[in-house]
C-alpha cells in the first residue's frame, strides 16, 4: 500500500492542477518523480507537522486541494489541533494521508505507533475517515473523494488484503451472508476475518469508510442478534455508530481490536498481532466463542 501512495498522488497531481502536496520529510524518494515534474506543487517542508497542516489550510484558502503526508502519529496526534481548528472548524477541504498505521513500525517502538488515530479523529466533527484494505482500494477511494471539499484522513496500512474489493466512498459492502452473526471487518482486517470465518454461517460486512459511517448497511445486515467488530486500531472507535445503527435491534456486540496498552516490545507487525491475540486463529477462536453462547 505504501508504494501506491506515490503513484496515486502523482496521478492526482498530473490530472488536477489545484492539487498540492506537502510532506514531512517522509517518502522523499518515493515522491521524487512528482517533485521533479510538479516543483511548484510538491513541497518537502521538513519536520514540522503542525505547521505543515496549518500551512496546507492556507493553501486550501487559496483554492488549492492540499494533500499532506507523514507518519500517522505525527500527522494525527501531534497535529490534531491543527486538523480540528484549521480544517474542521474552518470548513476547509484537504487530505491527510498517513503511513505507519497502528504498529506497522513495530521495531521502532511506541513513539512511532498510532493505534489511536481512528478513535481520535472520530471525535473531530466533519473529518472523513478512510481505511483502505489494499493498494487498489486506496487508489480508488482517494480518487473518489480527495476533492470533495471536506477534510479526509486516509489511513494506510502495512498489511493488505489479498483480494481487492469494489469499494465506494461512504459505503460498506457485504462480503458474504450468513445467519448466526454479523462480522464487521475494517480495512486490512478483512483478510484475517475471511480466514477466521471460513465456512461459519455468518455475514461479513466490509467497511473502508468509517466517517461518514454507512449505518444503513449495518442496519440491513444484522444477523443472529450478534455483531463482532474486527478493527485494526484501538477497538471501539466505531462503537457509537454501531449503537446508532442497531438502536432498534437488541444485539450483543463484541470488539476485537488493538487493546489500549503500550506493548513495550519491538519485533514485527506479526509479532505484535500475536502478542495482542489478533492473528486469524485468535480471531476465529473469539468468533466461535461468541457463536457458542
Amino acid at each position, binding site marked *: 500500500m505504501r508504494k501506491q501512495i506515490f503513484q496515486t498522488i502523482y496521478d492526482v497531481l498530473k490530472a488536477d492542477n489545484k492539487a498540492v502536496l506537502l510532506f514531512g520529510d517522509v517518502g522523499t524518494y518515493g515522491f521524487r518523480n512528482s517533485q521533479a515534474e510538479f516543483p511548484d506543487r510538491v513541497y518537502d517542508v521538513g519536520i514540522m507537522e503542525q*505547521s505543515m497542516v*496549518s*500551512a496546507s489550510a*492556507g493553501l486550501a484558502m487559496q483554492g488549492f486541494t492540499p494533500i499532506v503526508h507523514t507518519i500517522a502519529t505525527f500527522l494525527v496526534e501531534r497535529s490534531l*489541533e491543527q486538523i480540528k481548528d*484549521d480544517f474542521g472548524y474552518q470548513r476547509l477541504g484537504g487530505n491527510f494521508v498517513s503511513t505507519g498505521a497502528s504498529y506497522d513500525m513495530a521495531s521502532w517502538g511506541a513513539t512511532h505507533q498510532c493505534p489511536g488515530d481512528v478513535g481520535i479523529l472520530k471525535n473531530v466533527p466533519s473529518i472523513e475517515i478512510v481505511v483502505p484494505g489494499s493498494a487498489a482500494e486506496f487508489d480508488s477511494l482517494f480518487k473518489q473523494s480527495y476533492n470533495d471539499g471536506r477534510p479526509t484522513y486516509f489511513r494506510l496500512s502495512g498489511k493488505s488484503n489479498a483480494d481487492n474489493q469494489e469499494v465506494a466512498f461512504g459505503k460498506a459492502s457485504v462480503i458474504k451472508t450468513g445467519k448466526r452473526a454479523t462480522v464487521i471487518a475494517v480495512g486490512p482486517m478483512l483478510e484475517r476475518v475471511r480466514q477466521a470465518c471460513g465456512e461459519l454461517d455468518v455475514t461479513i460486512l466490509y467497511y473502508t469508510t468509517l466517517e461518514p459511517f454507512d449505518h444503513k448497511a449495518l442496519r440491513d445486515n444484522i444477523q443472529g442478534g450478534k455483531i463482532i467488530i474486527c478493527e485494526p486500531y484501538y477497538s471501539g472507535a466505531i462503537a457509537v455508530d454501531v449503537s446508532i445503527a442497531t438502536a432498534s435491534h437488541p444485539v450483543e456486540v463484541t470488539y476485537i481490536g488493538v487493546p489500549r496498552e503500550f506493548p513495550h516490545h519491538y519485533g514485527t507487525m506479526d509479532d505484535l498481532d500475536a502478542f495482542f491475540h489478533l492473528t486469524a486463529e485468535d480471531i476465529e477462536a473469539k468468533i466461535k466463542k461468541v457463536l457458542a453462547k
Partner: protein
Amino acid sequence: MKHLKENIIRTATEANEGHIPAALSILDILWVLYDRILGITPENFSNPDRNRFILSKGHAAIGLYIVLAEKGFFKLEELKNFGKFDSRFGGHPDRTMVPGVEASTGSLGHGFPMAVGLALGAKIKRAPSKVYAIVGDGECNEGTIWESAMLAAHNKLDNLYCVVDQNHSGDPALNPGDMRQKFESFGWQAVRINGHDQEEIYKALTQKSVGKPIAIIAETIKGKGVKIMENSAEWTHKYPTKEQLEVMIKELE
C-alpha cells in the same frame, strides 16, 4: 482613532467579553492595514486574488471587528450582541460567520502558519497579492511560529509580511529577547518600529523585499490610550465599571 478606541471599549464593556488591551495594542496597525494597505472592501472580498490579512492573535478580535465595521463589512450596531449566543461575533473570530475575516484564529500559533500557506499559494498561482499577519509576542513562544518562519524563508516568500505586536506583556513569563535579530537569523528581512506611529507602520508595510519575507517588530503598549490599562496585567480580561468607562472615554480625547 478616538472613536474606534471608544467603540472597542464600549462594545467589550457592554458585552463583558473581549480583550480590550490586546485590541488597543494593535489598533494602529490594523487601521493602517485596512485603510491604506490591504485594499479589501466588502465588494471585492470574494476576489480569490485579494490581499489577505490574518489576525493570528485571535483574542484581539474586538479590534478587528471594530475596524471591519468602520470599513462597512457590517453595521456597528450588530456588535452590541458581541459574545451572545445568536451573535456572529465572539471572543475569537469565526471565518464562516464574519464578513471580512479570513481565518478562525484563537489557538495561538495557527494563524501565522496559515498565512505562510496563503503566501505560498499566491506564489503557486503567480498572483500579485500579498499576505499580512499580526502575531503576538507572547504567541511567539509557540514552536509553530518558528517552524513557519523557517518554511517562509526557505521558500523566499517575499509576499508575506508578519507584524509582531511586541507589547512585552509576556516577558515576565518568557522573555523572547531581540525579536528582530531572531527573525533575521531565521532568514527574514526585519525592522523594528513604533507600533503606534501610523507613518512608521505604513512605511514598514510598504518596504520592498529583497527576496525574503518581512517581519515588522512593532513596539506597542498593551491598552494604549487608556492609562489605567496600559501595560497592566490586571486589565488583560477585565471590564470597567460605568464610572471608569466614562473616565476612560474622556481620557481618549
